[in-house]
């Protein structure tokens, strides 16, 4: 390859062809453009004229330059120019592409893969075998060398893992390596255990090149909750100038939509690698947060999931006994309040109100009986997942609750009275607690010696008692019993919640027991010992890009591995659900720090933004083609062939191509113009040619009559297709109903309903009044019912005598068409319409009736042919002509009604108006 500045040539010898350009210049200059033959009568005047300058026929210099450029571009293009050619010596031997593949790589994974792709291309050119290995996804042993092309196809399938490489695994793998190979190390920029050792292994095998992104590496430690504030700590790998990052708290809003609930800025001081931010949120909002993230960073390390440790449980405390003034320490709830206040939100109030608030826990301290409704609600609440915590007391001991048979809200049956031990009036010593059994949720808590129980309620021996007892006294009598109910549970402490019956509420054990019961939230993470034997099922997992995904069918993990585990292949970071709480496993632990990967000076480290080789051949050839195209136009123009109408025609063709003319739209516009420039009556196209023709003729006749007799001067009527035409142009639609008419589409119905709602009127004509009454069993009537079902039609009534239709222009009482039926229906008058004193008419509906329904075949009565003669006979003789006249008058009244609304109704108000105006 021969290079010239930033451009190299793969076939530099071809560039010698450029020497030929001057010769080409001379040749092109010598050859004049081909002549055009033109017929021109004026040639007689040209005879004898000679050209002034025999040089001017030559191709103009700029056209020559254009052609020279085109040819030069072709030559240079075929010489194979490459921008930023990789001038390095081609490597030899196998190449290992080693990718860290941790979450730190996820920030710019796509660009990294591009870079790896470039390295693979290079290796493919040099014919080197390549192995691509991810530190987080190591092959079983050795290096999977393959052809570079094979790896290039698999690059898209590589994904970073949201954890750091396992040092042990890395060391094992490194010791198995042998043979010489060069290494191309795609580093995530994060230090991890075993990296230095790996580097020395690679260096022993061959050259090592390292690529590192310059983008800063930011991570987020798990959120900590203390003193009502959430503390967030952001980390960065390299201490640098002062930088600010925004931390976002994400969770579901009340509508269940995941969104950012709060944002807080955190500032890295200059030279510092950590930045802290405190976030104070109302408990409601805080409980909703599911994760925190550094905004704008796509990496698992910048996301930290929250678990129950942030959440504060709502605990409702209800005491059965009224507090006695001044005896705070004897209050049944005092010790509970003290124990729970730091770690839970307490709710107090009547039980019925508390259940509505749906707390996590309801504590009933010495409450014996509940109202049946309350008990029912409480039971439902427990079955939905609530924890009902009951404490015994004098009342419970004295009551008959759960005596003969087990109460639904008690874990066991109780013996009457309870017992007292070690008191002044009783035998024996106060009892101590027996160590907790393995099956007990309290297992592992140490029992202090000073806890004494002096009184308790006794459980009836039952087959289920042993199973339900989770804490017992040294004599084996149950101290705490538990019963599961649906998703929830009922727990009974057989002692009081205050220190009256035992010293348990005074001890630290009480608080721990409450924690274990998940009444309160434990502030610290459980230790491995506590988690032993439990199984945790992942609910949501985090991928390396910081995206939270459904865990799907991932298997559960053992509690002890979860306790102080680092995320790994079998333990993806995410949210793990246990029996009664959830634990978050985050990529960055609470103590973690970020260290930048450091490389010895002998290792070349390149940034990602290496200028890639760009082949310029295509561009140059395309440029040459474009120049030649320009040359064609220029030559045509120069020789006079591109002149006059032709450019205009070319432009017109181009324009026509660019702006496809929509014939349909044009037709629509024409129709819209026709329909809106004058008043136009319209009828609905039924599909029956004869009916449509009569409707058209009828409206034509009516339009003529309107023109002659009234100030309404309609243009020729229009046929309207409900499916395609706009209806809003027409004040009035005549709709002859045929038995075979297809139902309009739902879009057409939407259009019709809009039309009716916005003041349009439809005259439905079943045309069968001679054989059927309105709504009778005629086929058209049935079809009308089907047609009108989806329409927004108000209640109808037969035209009342005082309807405005009877007097909008003519005074009418009948509305005949070809048939004379009185069954014509219009919108019903409001039921409270009443006739005012002295008025001839009722004050009826304010507006135009949206439909008029009848069967009198009006169009046939109105129809006229082209010469203006009636098309159909109506009735017989003079009476028939009279009927036709009345039919026309009905049409006139109808159109008047459509166009003037209730104007004639308002006439009845005129005397009152005049009176008020003082005239």
């Amino acid at each position, binding site marked *: 390859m021969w290079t010239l500045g930033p451009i190299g040539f793969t076939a530099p010898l071809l560039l010698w062809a450029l020497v030929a350009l001057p010769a080409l210049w001379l040749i092109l200059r010598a050859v004049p*453009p081909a002549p055009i033959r*033109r017929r021109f*009568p004026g*040639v007689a005047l040209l005879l004898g*004229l000679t*050209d002034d300058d025999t040089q*001017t026929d030559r191709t103009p210099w700029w056209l020559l330059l254009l052609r020279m450029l085109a040819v030069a571009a072709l030559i240079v293009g075929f010489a194979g120019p490459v921008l930023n050619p990789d001038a390095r010596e081609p490597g030899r031997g196998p190449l290992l592409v080693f990718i860290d593949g941790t979450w730190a790589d996820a920030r710019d994974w796509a660009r990294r893969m591009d870079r790896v792709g470039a390295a693979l291309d290079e290796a493919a050119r040099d014919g080197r075998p390549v192995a691509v290995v991810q530190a987080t996804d190591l092959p079983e042993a050795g290096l999977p060398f393959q052809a570079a092309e094979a790896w290039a196809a698999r690059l898209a399938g590589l994904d970073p893992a949201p954890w750091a490489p396992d040092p042990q695994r890395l060391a094992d793998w490194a010791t198995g390596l042998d043979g010489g190979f060069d290494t191309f190390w795609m580093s995530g920029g994060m230090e991890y255990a075993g990296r230095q050792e790996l580097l020395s292994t690679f260096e022993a095998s061959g050259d090592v090149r390292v690529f590192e992104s310059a983008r800063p590496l930011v991570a987020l430690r798990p959120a900590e909750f203390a003193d009502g504030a959430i503390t967030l700590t952001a980390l960065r790998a390299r201490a640098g100038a002062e930088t600010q990052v925004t931390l976002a708290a994400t969770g579901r809003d009340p509508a269940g939509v995941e969104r950012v609930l709060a944002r807080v800025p955190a500032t890295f001081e200059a030279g510092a690698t950590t930045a802290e931010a405190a976030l104070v949120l109302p408990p409601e909002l805080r409980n909703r947060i599911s994760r925190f993230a550094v905004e704008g960073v796509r990496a698992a390390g910048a996301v930290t999931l929250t678990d129950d440790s942030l959440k504060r449980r709502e605990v409702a405390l209800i005491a059965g006994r009224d507090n006695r003034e001044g005896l705070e320490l004897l209050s049944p709830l005092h010790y509970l309040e003290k124990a729970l206040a730091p770690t839970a939100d307490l709710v107090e109030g009547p039980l019925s109100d508390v259940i509505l608030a749906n707390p996590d826990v309801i504590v009933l301290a010495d409450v014996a009986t509940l109202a049946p409704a309350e008990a029912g609600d409480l039971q439902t609440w427990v079955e939905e997942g609530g924890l009902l915590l009951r404490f015994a007391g004098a009342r419970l001991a004295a009551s008959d609750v759960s005596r003969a048979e087990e109460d639904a809200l008690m874990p066991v049956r109780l013996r009457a009275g309870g017992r007292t031990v070690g008191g002044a009036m009783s035998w024996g010593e106060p009892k101590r607690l027996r160590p907790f059994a393995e099956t007990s949720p309290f297992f592992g808590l140490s029992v202090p010696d000073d806890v004494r129980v002096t009184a308790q309620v006794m459980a009836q021996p039952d087959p289920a008692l042993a199973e339900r007892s989770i804490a017992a006294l040294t004599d084996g009598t149950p101290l705490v019993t538990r019963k599961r109910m649906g998703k929830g549970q009922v727990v009974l402490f057989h002692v009081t919640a205050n220190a009256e019956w035992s010293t348990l509420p005074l001890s630290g054990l009480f608080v721990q027991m409450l924690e274990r019961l998940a009444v309160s939230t434990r502030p610290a993470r459980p230790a491995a010992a506590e988690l032993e034997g439990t199984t945790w099922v992942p609910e949501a997992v985090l991928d390396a890009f910081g995206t939270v995904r459904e865990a799907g069918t991932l298997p559960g993990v053992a509690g002890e591995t979860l306790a102080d585990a680092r995320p790994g292949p079998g333990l993806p970071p995410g949210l793990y659900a246990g029996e009664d709480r959830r634990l978050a496993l985050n990529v960055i632990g609470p103590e973690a720090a970020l260290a930048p990967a450091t490389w010895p000076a002998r290792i070349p480290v390149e940034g990602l933004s290496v200028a890639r080789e760009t082949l310029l051949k295509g561009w140059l050839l395309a440029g040459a083609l474009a120049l030649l195209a320009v040359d064609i136009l220029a030559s045509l123009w120069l*020789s*006079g062939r591109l002149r006059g109408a032709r450019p205009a025609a070319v432009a017109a063709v181009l324009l026509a191509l660019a702006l496809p003319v929509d014939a349909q739209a044009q037709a629509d516009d024409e129709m819209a113009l026709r329909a809106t420039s004058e008043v136009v009556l319209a009828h609905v196209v039924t599909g029956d040619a004869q009916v449509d023709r009569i409707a058209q003729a009828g409206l034509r006749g009516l339009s003529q009559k309107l023109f002659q007799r009234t100030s309404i001067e309609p243009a020729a009527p229009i046929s309207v297709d409900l499916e395609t035409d706009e209806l809003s142009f027409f004040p009035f639609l005549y709709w002859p109903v045929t038995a075979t008419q297809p139902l309009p589409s739902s879009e057409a119905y939407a259009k019709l309903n809009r039309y009716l709602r916005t003041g349009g009127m439809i005259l439905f004509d079943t045309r069968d009044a001679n054989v059927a009454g309105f709504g009778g069993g005629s086929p058209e009537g049935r079809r009308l019912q089907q047609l009108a079902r989806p329409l927004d039609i108000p209640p109808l009534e037969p035209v009342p005598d005082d309807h405005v239709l009877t007097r909008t222009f003519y005074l009418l009482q009948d509305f005949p068409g070809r048939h004379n039926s009185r069954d014509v229906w219009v919108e019903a008058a409001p039921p409270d319409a009443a006739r005012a004193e002295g008025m001839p008419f009722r004050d009826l509906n304010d507006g135009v009736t949206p439909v008029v329904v009848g069967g009198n075949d009006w169009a046939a009565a109105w129809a006229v042919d082209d010469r203006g003669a009636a098309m159909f006979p109506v009735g017989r003789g003079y009476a028939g002509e009279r009927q036709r006249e009345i039919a026309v008058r009905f049409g006139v009244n109808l159109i008047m009604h459509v166009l003037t609304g209730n104007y004639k109704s308002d006439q009845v108000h005129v005397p009152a108006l005049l009176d008020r105006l003082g005239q």
Partner: protein
Amino acid sequence: MSDPATLRARAEGLAEALPPLLAEAEHLAQAVLLGEHGRRRAGVGDEFWQYRPAHAGDEARMIDWRRSARSDAHFVREKEWQAAQSVLLWVDDAASMGFSGERNHPTKAERARVLALAVAVLLMRGGERVGLTGAELPPRRGPLQLLRLAEALGADGAADYGTPDATGMPPHARAVFLSDFLGDLAPVEAALTEAADRGVKGAMLQILDPAEEAFPFDGRTIFESMAGTLSHETLKAGDLRARYLDRLAERKQRLSDLARVTGWHYSTHHTGEGAQGALLWLYRALERAQ
């Protein structure tokens, strides 16, 4: 007697071609409102001119008795002299007239024919007789003559450039020459001189295409005459423009001078314009030529 069937077919073929031209000409002529065009002196005619007292020598039948009865003297009713003029048309039918610089412009021949026929319509409406120069179609009047004119004008000549035919012109007739006058001017000169000798006056209308007036050509071009007899090659047509236009102006000047000398009227008409103006000019030129 020819076969009636073929006669009919031929007649229809003829009629097919003629009416459009005639109709166009009629349409054009319709726009010109004819004024009175009598001779303004007593003579043979239809229109009343004046009453004059009867002289001795007037025949008794010449006395207008109705007028004479209102006075003591006798009066003779005189009519305006309305002798019909003969107008002869020469429409150049050479190949050069078939040129049209743009697709939507009519050819010069088309325009010339329409103008000729329209002026014929007008003249006949004014009572004149119209014919073609040469012996082919002597001046006559009437609708039939119009049809004959239309037919005669429809023919295309084979020559490259037309030469006017000044034969068959009755003395003191009027003549109209419609041509592009791009050919040799000597025959034109000769024809005009001959016409002037016979006292024939008239109008010369030079019909040119806008392209001939503007010479909008560039580049290497071979110009050929319409029939192909003449050709001229240039390497740079644009350079010839000025000299071409000079020659054209010179030619126009020469024609104008010639017209002035012979008492004719000369004007130029471009096919890019409407025909109306040219028709009006022709009509007025013929009136002036009286």
